[in-house]
């Protein structure tokens, strides 16, 4: 049951990063590449139409994590207090940026909300990457100082950074040079994904240029990925042992690299193939990272308190089994809604006829 719920939650989280991920990417592209007013309008709209429906995946994943792994939820959410609240604020700035820009015709009004949308999208992509980096690196569970835990073994609190910015000390911070690398990987990945989405969903004048941008970002991403894996193997030589022990898990990194290689042909492939490749890069990236740690979900950086796993943080069997029944019904319904939406809102958004209703 723990494994079942772990997979469901990972699926919902991955869906969030895939679906809302393109909105973050659209924000980044909007910030750096959309210059003409026409492009700005349509690029923002390619995120604006969908962001709130996509954010629901985060809400659902959060609720499920709360229900199935309450100890992990309590530990991680209080421990990563500051970055999480900052993410909440960024989500608000992203949303108002998208919702407000087209309500008044003043240039200054539009500029303010474009920056709000673009900068908060960039920072969200960075922070979500940093979050993943933190989960890989681990935290000082129980806040051990000189061999003594200051708190119960599953609680901790992380400052935003410590003086050394180093991931190798015991009292780590949220931001260090390792988590920053993972943050950059996230920014590059989502920017690429957002670019692919813009090309697919709009007729903006920068589409041709973006195909080239995807290629460049893909090359940067390959370099960053290899670099981060090598660096992490030096810090933690056992990091990839899971793949050696369970050979079938290698399929996940293979999926990731298939996406990366596919995107090298960004200029030749179809628009749908491009977004398919960026999607499997995101999915493969998240899945490979989590698989390398499994069943650990939050490693301990001290050797006194054990790492948090899906087994020592889960709710009891009864609750998980009842919930698995309603979860199946919910997932079927969600797929039905997604198909209905796709059917009615497919195609390029600037070709759509809303019946005179768009704001």
């Amino acid at each position, binding site marked *: 049951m723990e494994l079942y719920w772990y997979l469901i939650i990972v699926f919902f989280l991955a869906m969030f990063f895939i679906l809302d991920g393109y909105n973050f990417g659209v924000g980044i592209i909007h910030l750096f590449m959309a210059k003409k007013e026409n492009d700005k309008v349509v690029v923002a709209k390619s995120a604006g139409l969908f962001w709130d429906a996509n954010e629901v995946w985060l809400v659902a994943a959060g609720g499920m994590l*709360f229900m199935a792994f309450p100890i992990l*939820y309590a530990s991680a959410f209080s421990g990563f207090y500051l970055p999480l609240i900052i993410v909440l604020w960024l989500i608000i700035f992203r949303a108002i940026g998208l919702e407000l820009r087209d309500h008044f015709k003043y240039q200054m009004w539009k500029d303010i909300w474009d920056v709000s949308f673009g900068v908060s999208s960039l920072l969200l992509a960075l922070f979500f990457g940093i979050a993943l980096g933190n989960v890989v690196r681990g935290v000082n569970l129980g806040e051990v100082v000189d061999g003594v835990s200051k708190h119960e073994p599953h609680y901790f609190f992380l400052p935003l950074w410590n003086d050394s910015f180093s991931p190798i000390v015991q009292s780590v911070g949220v931001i260090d040079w390792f988590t920053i690398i993972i943050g950059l990987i996230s920014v590059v990945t989502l920017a690429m994904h957002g670019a692919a989405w813009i090309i697919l969903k709009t007729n903006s004048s920068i589409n041709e240029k973006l195909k080239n941008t995807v290629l460049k970002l893909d090359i940067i991403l390959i370099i960053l990925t290899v670099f981060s894996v090598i660096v992490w193997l030096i810090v933690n030589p056992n990091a990839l042992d899971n793949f050696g022990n369970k050979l079938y898990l290698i399929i996940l990194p293979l999926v990731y690299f298939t996406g990366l290689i596919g995107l090298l042909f960004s200029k030749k492939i179809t628009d749908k193939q491009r977004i398919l490749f960026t999607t499997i890069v995101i999915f493969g990236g998240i899945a490979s990272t989590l698989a390398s740690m499994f069943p650990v979900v939050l490693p301990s950086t001290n050797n006194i308190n054990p790492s948090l796993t899906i087994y020592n943080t889960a709710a009891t069997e009864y609750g998980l089994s009842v919930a698995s029944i309603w979860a199946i019904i919910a997932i079927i319904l969600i797929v039905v809604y997604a198909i209905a939406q796709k059917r009615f809102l497919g195609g390029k958004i600037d070709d759509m006829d809303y019946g005179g209703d768009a704001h």
Partner: protein
Amino acid sequence: MLFYDRLQFAFTITFHYLFPQLTMGLSLIIVYFKWKYLKTKIEKYNNAAKFWMKIFAINFTMGVVTGIPMEFQFGTNWAKFSELTGSIIGQTLAMEGAFSFFLESSFLVLFIFGEKLLGQKLHFMAAFFVFLGSWLSGVFILATNAWMQHPVGFEILDNGRYVLTHFGELFSNPWLIPAFLHNQMASIVTSSFVVASVGAFYLLTKKDVEYGKLFLKTGVVFGFISAVLVAFPTGDWNAKNMVKYQPASFAAMEGLFKTEDGAEIVLIGQPNMVEKKLDNKIAVPNILSFLTYNNWDAKIKGMDAFKEDQLPTNIPMLYYSYHIMVGLGTIFIAIMAFAIYYLYRKKLWSKKGILWVIMFLAPFAYIANLLGWYVAELGRQPYLVYGLLKTADGISPTVSSGNTLFTLLGFMGLYFLLGFLFLILVGKTIKIGPENQNH
């Protein structure tokens, strides 16, 4: 620090609940407009539905971005509470995400952008599913709260953690149905008062007069029915649940310091916590006993019947919340009854005085709704899970008060900005009006 954690939760939930209380009731009124259009084919009704869905969408967005912090705060600020009870209240919160938000958000997009693509019948269905999604959300949130007010279907393990043993009891909880119905009726009060208020505004400014009349009439009819239902029977059921399951909170909210046979009902007065009595009291004898037990002389326990640590922590605030809510509710029924009378006599359009009153009535519906929640939440104190888990034992053990104050100040600043922008957007939508919205 407990105080900052409580203040942050109270502040963010108060701000958040300005939005769902409108959208839940408004979705019903939109379904009504769209249904009227399907039946009559008069364009006015369709425009009304689309106009209010625009206001709905703005509120929905605000509800989403202020709602995510609510879910996150369980973990960030109330980690111990989450650890101990997450496997139970997580059920209903996760179901809210999985069942209602996907439904509501998917069909909202389809309603707003899909009229031509869907056709009128499916467009009506989209409105209906938005309504269904938002009310389901109410079910799950009230089920979560009901468990905290009156915990059922669980056992406590040796390590102090609460685990679910009977899933069905989360929804057959005797606290749930009265609280849910009371809450939903109150939400219709807010939305119908807002609809009526915009209608009165259009009539008084002689703008979109046709729509002004439609909104006013619809708002007044929905408003009268819901204002009555909030008080009776749903409010009455809730008060009886309080007597039964939280008698100490009941005594505190009624301002009943001493146990009495034939207890009086307090209309006005200020709790004097030093001398344990009400100052400047105006009360009617025996009524409270009758309302509670249908017996004029029944004994009702006052606050003196309970130990100090079982009583709510902020008795005056609880007392005021309850009395202002009830007072406003009574005024609402009276004003709506007048409006209905003039509507029936076909004089409402020209009664300037009552139009002014109705225009300014909407904010008070919001106040009454929020105070109702304050009664529920202050009444549950000093507990998070009534009778079992104290609020002070639920906070995050590692988050320092400096960090909580930082985020509290941040939320205050950001929500001030958000509220300001919200008013601009809604004001602009009302200014454009239903007639010109498609141009």
